[in-house]
């Protein structure tokens, strides 16, 4: 492929806006593989297309992380993306076994880092093989539960976000990155420019700021999800009131899109079954199908979003290394690379 068409290709990818996610990934895959002819006809949706599957499968094998997403053509796949990692490993093990027993196919162990406290080091994520020699089997399916790693950063100051922008940091080792903004300005920054997969909504206190439509719409377009946890509501009745009222104010603005409901559980008794959580979503103002999606489809979208982000990074760095370009071209690519990080692919 010649210089001009490849640059045109770059511009097409880096432009924001709608379009099928698969289309974009397909084109990213072509550049990365350098062997497939770029077919215009893949834009049509007829019959799913032959080449999609190939490229999708190759792209899904992320080099750094081993998150292979295998969706079987069966019942809905439920996920709980917030199992808090405390100091008690035994409780975590019990929690994971309970989650598998309840029917969750995918869970994410959440490491919470609060920057307000003294200088915090971000630890390496837990490897599932440390916890279990053989992963517990999900009830109702014959596959073992999939355990991913997630990092949540509680940010109350703009300087805390720098760790996300640093190129070499432990953040990259996690499958999902979430941010918990404490002020309105940080919420705006998180929705519009930060490279995260989830924005957590406070459920234990009265909302410190009102939600506004513009940053939420931008976040929905970028594919960022909003997370509501329900385990505080289980423990205490005042928290229950805060959870429901905060959730309702979120739903009024975002209309139930891109919302995920997760447990935030630390102990085995704090997690509930997927259909129960979907019913709880009804109380939060979600419609029936949105509530079921909050535990299944939207979680899947978040996981893929997390994979996409790491793929994009690896693609961009590889491309810059592989082609011998002039300085001018390199600068242009660096510029478009940073733009790319702020416009994530929409699922």
């Amino acid at each position, binding site marked *: 492929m010649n210089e001009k068409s490849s640059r045109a290709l770059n511009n097409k990818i880096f432009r924001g806006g709608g379009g099928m996610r*698969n289309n974009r990934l397909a084109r990213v895959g072509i550049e990365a593989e350098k062997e497939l002819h770029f077919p215009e006809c893949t834009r049509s949706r*007829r*019959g*799913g*297309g*032959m080449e*999609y*599957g190939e490229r*999708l*499968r190759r792209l899904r094998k992320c080099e750094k992380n081993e998150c292979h*997403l295998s*969706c*079987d*053509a*069966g*019942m*809905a796949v439920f996920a709980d993306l917030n199992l808090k990692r405390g100091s008690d490993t035994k409780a975590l093990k019990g929690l994971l076994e309970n989650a598998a027993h309840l029917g969750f196919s995918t869970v994410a162990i959440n490491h919470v880092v609060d920057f307000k406290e003294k200088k915090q080091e971000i630890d390496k994520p837990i490897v599932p093989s440390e916890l279990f020699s053989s992963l517990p089997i999900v009830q109702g399916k014959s596959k073992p539960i999939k355990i991913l790693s997630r990092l949540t950063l509680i940010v109350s100051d703009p300087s805390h976000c720098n760790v996300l922008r640093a190129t070499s940091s432990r953040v990259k080792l996690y499958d999902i990155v979430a941010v918990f903004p404490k002020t309105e300005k940080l919420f705006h920054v998180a929705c519009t420019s930060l490279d995260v997969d989830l924005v957590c909504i406070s459920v234990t206190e009265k909302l410190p700021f009102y939600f506004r439509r513009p940053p939420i719409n931008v976040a929905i377009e970028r594919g960022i999800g909003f997370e509501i946890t329900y385990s505080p509501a289980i423990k205490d009745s005042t928290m229950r009131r805060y959870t429901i009222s905060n959730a*309702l104010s979120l*739903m009024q603005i975002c209309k139930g899109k891109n919302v995920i409901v997760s447990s935030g559980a630390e102990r085995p008794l704090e997690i509930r079954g997927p*259909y129960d959580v*979907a019913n709880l979503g*009804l*109380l939060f*103002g979600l*419609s*029936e*199908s949105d509530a*079921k999606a909050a535990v299944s*489809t939207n979680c899947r979208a978040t996981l893929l979003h997390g994979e996409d982000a790491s793929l994009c990074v690896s693609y961009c760095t590889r491309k810059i290394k592989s082609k011998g370009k002039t300085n001018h071209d390199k600068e242009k690519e660096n510029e478009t690379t940073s733009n790319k990080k702020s416009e994530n692919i929409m699922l």
Partner: protein
Amino acid sequence: MSTLRRLREAPRHLLVCEKSNFGHDKSRHRQHVQTHYLNYRVSFLIPECGILSKELKNIVMEVGPYYLVKNLPLHELIVHDFINNFVKKGKLILSLDKDTYEEIGLQGHPSRYSGRKVMRYIVTLDLMDSSFNPESKKYKRAFWAFSEKKPLKFNFLLAWHHEGTEQSTVMSYFSKYQIQEHQPKIAFSTLRDLQCPLLQSGELEGKPEESCSAPELFDWLGAVFSNVELNNQSFSFVSTYCCPQPSVLVEKAYLCTITGFIVSEKISLLLEQLCHYFDDPKLTPWVTLSVQGFADSPVSWRENEHGFRKGGEHLYNFVIFSNQDYWLQMAVGANDDCPP
């Protein structure tokens, strides 16, 4: 606000009640039974009956076996050998999620209940189509898709209605895979002192003080099958359900449940035999026959799409009266097409 309004609504479900007579020419009871293919559980309830008649018992015992084949690759089901031996006419319907659909590369259409983001696709292959012979492009493409592109293997439950003249049986055909024969589970029970609602065959909606309506009967029948206490005692925490009035106390009732993969032809036989139950005069004015489908089947009646939102129910219930009148109630849940 809209949230409160939504909370008051029940999840979407449809119940279609119709009444007719078995002797009527245009009665479609046979079609309804025969086009509901994937039946999981059949139960019938006969009030005022202590023991089952010999004919009924024979039919119940002769509900044929069903087979479980593990790890059967999908391409075996479209091989012409299989079609000629076992499938006289039929279609292969696949309900796939988004990733599988895109990877498998066959033509299909999005499910009707998808909303904005389509997550489910339906692929239909007509096995009897003239363009589906072994040489055609369509067949080759489908075969390639199932065997090489995305080899899918599933555990299959098979039920086969045979006339007895076929050369090979299911067991011998699939002998290279692990095929196991299962007999359906049959449970008999006699219920004592049951409150039964009074029904009049001509009144589907029920007359106040004289008979109960069809939906009330439907709820009551569900309560009986779930062994719910119908007294509404003050200390009972679990249920406050009462038998709809007017009702009569029946000394004993016979309940039989068959669980497994049951072919619709056997259900037709059972239905006919239950009609003949009233050939001799009996104490009870009505009997019921209920059939439930598998919760995760892709179709309900004929090719109507069936989805699973929170509970994938699709079932029908016959209420057979002594004068050969019947009520037919068909129920489906959310994400389902309306029953025929």
